[in-house]
């Protein structure tokens, strides 16, 4: 009997970012993801929850792990998945994003997973389409599923988020991962530290309640989690830091720095790692690194997100429930 079972409250058509989500909504995604973790351990790694649902992954930027993770999550929910790579087709012929998306939607798509280099692209599509839109990264705006999987990984490892001190180290300015993490972590009661050279940490962080530090060594012993953001090598050409080597010396996690962190402190990285830049290989593969757990968590979190938006208030009123 289900009369006393906890009901899902999820009402949103889209998942665009963590900024707009309530604490309850974030927790609902994380709790749902817990229920999906076990699916990947079965001999038949599939549940019929989204049978008949069509999901298109529309990617206008290179990505392997996010796309594979969404594909696999959708497949494990028994949805039909179609991959669409923006640069390879009609966009080259001058079609606008809206037109491309509307055409895809007209084929009977239920969920569109969008990765786009322009901030706000997902919000724009969500407003003009009646199908669900899941933001898989838009410009330097948000990457909600990445932040959710980071938070999910931390919550599983440390049992809570509230009261934790989490450092986002590196290119905070250009990082949608950082932005989504800041919203999510703060809502759940963590203290967030933005750590990096002044050129890569935007002004105004303090206004968001984020602590700013330009010296990783200063904050090492206090942090519970280090989320090492990826350095895009092209930023060096823009003169934002003098050299990769210097960046790594000042902001990279290495064996010596690991000696000064809390013994239970966690190391995260959204990937792909530049080994020897953000992390030395011994730290990336070390005991405190949860980088591969993040990938596994990502699958559960994306299944939860697709399930929640994909089954939201569909169809007729509920019949009396069978037992």
């Amino acid at each position: 009997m289900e009369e006393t079972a906890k009901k899902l409250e999820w009402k949103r058509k889209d998942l665009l970012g963590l900024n707009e989500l309530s604490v309850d909504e974030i927790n609902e995604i994380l709790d749902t993801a817990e229920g999906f973790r076990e699916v990947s351990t079965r001999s038949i790694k599939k549940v019929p929850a989204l049978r008949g649902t069509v999901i298109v992954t529309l990617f206008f930027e290179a990505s392997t792990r996010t796309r594979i993770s969404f594909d696999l999550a959708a497949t494990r929910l028994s949805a039909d998945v179609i991959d669409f790579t923006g640069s390879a087709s009609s966009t080259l012929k001058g079609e606008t994003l809206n037109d491309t998306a509307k055409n895809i939607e007209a084929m009977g798509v239920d969920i569109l997973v969008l990765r786009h280099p322009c901030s706000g692209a997902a919000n724009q599509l969500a407003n003009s389409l009646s199908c669900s839109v899941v933001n898989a990264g838009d410009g330097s705006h948000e990457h909600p599923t990445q932040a959710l999987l980071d938070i999910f990984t931390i919550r599983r490892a440390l049992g809570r988020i509230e009261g934790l001190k989490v450092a986002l180290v590196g290119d905070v300015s250009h990082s949608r991962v950082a932005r989504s993490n800041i919203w999510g972590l703060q809502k759940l009661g963590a203290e967030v530290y933005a750590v990096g050279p002044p050129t890569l940490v935007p002004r105004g962080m303090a206004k968001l309640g984020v602590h700013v530090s330009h010296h990783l060594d200063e904050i090492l012993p206090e942090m519970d989690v280090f989320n090492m953001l990826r350095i895009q090598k092209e930023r060096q050409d823009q003169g934002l830091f003098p050299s990769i080597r210097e960046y790594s010396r000042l902001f990279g996690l290495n064996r010596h720095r690991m000696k000064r962190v809390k013994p239970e402190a966690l190391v995260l990285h959204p990937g792909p790692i530049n080994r020897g830049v953000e992390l030395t290989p011994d730290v990336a593969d070390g005991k405190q690194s949860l980088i591969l757990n993040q990938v596994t968590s990502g699958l559960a979190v994306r299944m939860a997100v697709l399930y929640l938006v994909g089954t939201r208030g569909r169809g007729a009123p509920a019949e009396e429930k069978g037992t």
Partner: protein
Amino acid sequence: MPWIGGEEFGRLFSEWKGRIRIAMDADAGTASSQRSAWALVGIKRRGAVLARRLWKTLHTERRPLLYGEIDISLYRDDYHLQTEKAMVLGTEITFRVDGVKILLVDDVLYTGRTVRAAMDLVLDFGRPRVIALAVLLDRGHRELPIAADFVGREVDTRREDRVLVLLEEMGEKDGVDLIRSPGE
């Protein structure tokens, strides 16, 4: 006043458990049982509570029983019709299902749709030797060709009624409530 009170509920439960025990003992004498174990698998949440109670007394050194709990919310056939969905609670089957005899446990057998979903779920974990079904109450009104192997009691209800098995583990007093549909 509950429809079935605490004392009567206790008797009902232990008779039901007794019949399951006898069947398992009889089965233990056969040759095929050398090769396969029994597993109690409860359907969340109330079926799982009952399965845990059964396991506590039926699991002995002489007759070891495997144990699991399943959440069928991802296997419902009405998820596309529902406006309200239950929280996904997760399934915990940590043993290898292949060749095992599974006894599904639920509180109430009604349309049979939950049991259909539970069978589909179990089969996604492997190929059990047998799937059997134990329900505390069978209230009739089946919509699928499904029957239970162990029934605590058959109860006469109307389709619109609601039958609630109340359990201490859920913060209630053991018993059964029958909520008659309005207009009766």
